[in-house]
């Protein structure tokens, strides 16, 4: 027995020594400045692209070395919190979602970048105001825009044609009508699927729908929640109708964005309202069964919404931020990396993977060649609404998710759900 135990131990030791070299990342040279950078994997720029950017940066500043950490999006927020709790930051530069702007800005987990931007970014106006707004709280700019993600309206032109429509809907009423006809003609069982599971995606869809009805701001100028009146209330009623009339797939209530995209890419849904990634998926034969049939366009809007853009979308911007417990000696270098990674020159090199935040690049001939729908993208980007920027956004969001979900499912009447939502949020803020 003893021998057996010993041999097992030996085996384990050998195994771990054999595997050990895997763990040692290239730590051969140790430059003077080490910047720790937190970024997400499986969304936005790929980790490969980020590392390419990193290498270019290290080439430009040979005394700096970047240390990347890649986490799934779902782990990013708690990782930043973790970093902020330590005496010295675990990550010096982090990818910050715009929904954290309020929390990070007011609690001071990341640093305002106003002075850095004023001094170093000469063409700040080239980034659309709609993007800057996502990162501003009380006049402080909490992150430098890096990823310009937003939603587009996608439709399957083959299905529309079968139903007798040659053009996508321009108004909410027309959209509803097209869905009803598609359903009645049994071309597909459910014309639409959206990401209504109880998660952030549901809030995005709710804000966007409210925007399509004319106003996607869930809080008024005084900072009070207004979901129980006007456009947000109409939006909730509309979402309920889609579900109750069987126009939206019941699976929407448990679907997230990839699931909704799947339904569209498999040819089971005529419409999809989703982030820009769907453009890439729907025309990729290894990921889609509707190659050549998917079209991206602007969103239908209710008549009377006097927005010049005639569309309404939702923002999912992410920026680069500097954590507040980054040592003072590292801050200039942290900023240099932020400025480098977000610079027009670097973004122009990676147009194939992401929509650029800079207008001149977005409207460049190069982008148009890569992405024939660039003008549509530009229109939807100009028409984005932001989710509320408040200090306890994630808590507010979970209340919104809960009641919007119940309103759509019909367990609570729409108006009551909206009232409850407002009351709960007010109670939270008291």
């Amino acid at each position: 027995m003893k021998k057996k135990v010993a041999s097992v131990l030996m085996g384990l030791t050998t195994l771990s020594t054999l595997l050990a070299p895997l763990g040692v990342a290239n730590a051969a040279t140790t430059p003077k400045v080490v910047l720790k950078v937190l970024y997400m994997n499986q969304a936005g720029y790929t980790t490969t692209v980020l590392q390419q950017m990193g290498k270019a940066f290290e080439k430009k500043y040979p005394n700096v070395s970047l240390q990347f950490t890649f986490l799934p999006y779902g782990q990013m927020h708690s990782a930043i919190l973790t970093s902020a709790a330590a005496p010295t930051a675990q990550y010096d530069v982090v990818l910050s979602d715009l929904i954290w702007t309020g929390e990070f800005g007011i609690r001071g987990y990341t640093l305002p970048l106003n002075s850095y931007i004023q001094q170093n970014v000469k063409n700040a106006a080239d980034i659309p105001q709609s993007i800057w707004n996502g990162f501003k709280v009380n006049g402080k700019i909490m992150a430098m825009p890096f990823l310009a993600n937003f939603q587009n309206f996608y439709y399957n032109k083959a299905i529309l044609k079968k139903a007798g429509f040659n053009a996508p809907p321009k108004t909410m009423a027309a959209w509803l009508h097209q869905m009803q006809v598609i359903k009645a003609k049994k071309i597909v069982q459910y014309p639409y699927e959206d990401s209504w599971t109880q998660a952030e995606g549901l809030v995005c869809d709710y804000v966007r729908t409210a925007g399509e009805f004319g106003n996607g701001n869930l809080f008024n100028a005084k900072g009070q929640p207004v979901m129980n009146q006007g456009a947000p209330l109409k939006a909730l009623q509309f979402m309920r109708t889609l579900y109750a009339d069987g126009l939206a797939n019941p699976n929407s209530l448990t679907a997230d964005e990839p699931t909704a995209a799947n339904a569209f890419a498999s040819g089971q849904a005529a419409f999809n309202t989703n982030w820009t990634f769907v453009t890439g998926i729907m025309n990729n034969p290894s990921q889609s069964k509707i190659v050549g049939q998917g079209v991206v366009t602007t969103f239908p809007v209710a008549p009377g919404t006097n927005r010049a853009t005639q569309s309404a979308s939702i923002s999912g911007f992410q920026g680069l931020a500097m954590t507040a417990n980054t040592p003072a000696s590292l801050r200039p270098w942290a900023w240099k990396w932020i400025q480098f990674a977000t610079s027009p020159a670097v973004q122009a090199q990676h147009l194939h993977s992401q929509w650029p935040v800079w207008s001149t690049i977005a409207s460049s001939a190069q982008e148009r060649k890569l992405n024939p729908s660039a003008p549509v993208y530009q229109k939807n980007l100009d028409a984005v609404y932001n989710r509320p920027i408040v200090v306890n956004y994630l808590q507010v969001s979970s209340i919104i998710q809960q009641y919007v979900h119940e309103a759509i499912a019909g367990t609570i009447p729409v108006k009551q759900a909206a009232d409850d939502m407002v009351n709960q949020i007010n109670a939270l803020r008291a």
Partner: protein
Amino acid sequence: MLSSAIVRVVERVSVSLGTRKSLLSRMWHRFFSSLTGEYLWFYLLLIPSILLLILVVIIPMVFAFRMSLGNTMVTILGGKGNLSMQWVGLQNYIQILQNPNFWQAFRDTLYFTVVSLLVEVTVGVGLAVLMNQQFFGRKIFRVIVFIPWAIPTIVNAMLWGMVFDGDNYGALNDILLQLHIISSPIVWLNPSPLFTNIPWLSSFMNWMGGSVAMNSMIVGDEWRTLPIVAVLLLAGLQTIPNEYYEAAKVEGASAWRQFRAITFPLLGPIMSIVLILRTMQLLRAFTLIFTLQQYGLPTLSINAYQQAFSFGNFGSGSAISFLIGILSLLIAVVYINRLYKEEMS
């Protein structure tokens, strides 16, 4: 100089202790004598585990209690990260106990636990009895039945996510559609009410937390855990001497009577162990629900996780987790006491 001062202090203390001096010295004596000789070995062998217990259980629990009494969150002070624990007394607890969402989570957790246990003591016993029968291929059957228990929980969660997919690609929907049992796909993971045609039952079940999604969770969880329950119970069945049954047969007892008079009581000790282990596992179940439902089905564990790690409210997160801890410990003590009594008898 210093040592003489210490001696004087010690003398003072012993004098002031007066009458208790003899007791104290006796205790010292016993302590030292126990440290020497073979008892030294005992302490040396036991101490690492006790230290580990203090380090990884007791200190964190005490700290969690302290956090739960404060408005605990991460703050930055002068460029340094920090934890602020501004004292608020029992406010976190009061807020939690007044929050209807907490009680819904409590009922959800209870429903999940109780229904799962019911399934395990009925279907589990049935499966064990089945495995104990004589039939062709019994050996391989026992092996096959045991396999799901080895599948890691996260894989099980992902697997049942695919089975329960509410779209047309879901395996369960596909089977039911092909057998013409349903006409359109069912959204298995949606927390929608059951028995919608009987309003009072429907609203009661909903209040209890027994939604479609919750029952799907139970099915997915039981696929993985019924095997271990059944196999443990089978081990118990095999310890029951066959003569008992033969004697019962001679007396003409029916199969059901045999089961009630012999099988069930003699399975008692094993059943207790299964119940303890399973109750605790069910109360802390996290992975399956977190992966498939996240915040759509907020059981107590999920609730605590969300408060702490999503909202950054470590105070109320700790308070909830402390409440679950107390609840679990109470149940554990009741069970373990029962177990000890059973062992005595």
